């Protein structure tokens, strides 16, 4: 298992391997034009364009770092990232969970505060318990994406019958 995960390369999740090929393409596209026409001016403009692109990319990365801690979210997880700062309902895989001797179905509501490639954080985290449908858990809670069954935008104040 460990080998699998090291191959997957999660220790380098901060790297932005998607961006490099794009730049290469731009350079290739720009070079022939430069040679044909006024070299200096075009050089300047292309440099500007390229540096501008880099700046926006950097800004995006910074934003991502602030909001999601890990700068690069793999495309398959974008569905979760779209929910950032929105109220959602999360239902987990297990039949039931147990806190303080209270047995409850794993139905949670709350605002998505953080999304990484592996888990999302709800803050506040509301547990939909049978006898306390709006139980605020005292800390935020993290949910491994791999164990989520249902995930939907949801207004936390909505009252629903809990089976």
């Amino acid at each position: 298992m460990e080998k699998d995960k090291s191959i997957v390369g999660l220790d380098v999740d901060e790297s932005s391997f998607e961006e490099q090929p794009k730049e290469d393409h731009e350079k290739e596209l720009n070079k022939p034009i430069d040679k044909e026409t006024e070299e200096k001016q075009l050089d300047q403009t292309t440099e500007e364009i390229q540096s501008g692109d880099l700046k926006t990319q950097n800004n995006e990365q910074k934003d991502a770092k602030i909001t999601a801690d890990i700068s690069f979210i793999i495309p398959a997880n974008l569905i979760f990232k779209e929910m950032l700062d929105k109220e959602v309902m999360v239902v987990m895989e297990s039949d039931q969970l147990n806190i303080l001797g209270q047995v409850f179905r794993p139905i949670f509501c709350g605002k998505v505060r953080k999304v990484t490639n592996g888990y999302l954080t709800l803050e506040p985290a509301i547990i939909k318990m049978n006898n306390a449908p709006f139980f605020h858990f005292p800390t935020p809670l993290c949910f491994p994406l791999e164990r989520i069954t249902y995930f939907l935008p949801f207004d936390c104040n909505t009252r629903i019958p809990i089976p």
Partner: protein
Amino acid sequence: MRVDISSIRQASVVKAFKRGKRKKALILTAEFPFLVIGKIKDVVGDYVCIDVETTHIDQLEGRIFNVHVDRIEVFYIEEKGYKIPKIPKGSICTKERGGAK
């Protein structure tokens, strides 16, 4: 190279625990003993070693639990601002017994 989305997600959770070494963590699992609270001692492969301070069963407290990260349903690793509340000893167990009978 084919990359399995499931292993990316699982490894990312493992990484969160690695980053949280020596911090207090709360873990909920569907399996017994359902809830453990304690300091993260180490992470080995996809197992996290937790020095359990609080769980449902008093007799199990004060031991090192090796928890399979992929089986964790809900977790929280202590950060600034939010402390995991202390749970007085015995309160969980008695409640559970009351509920069962």
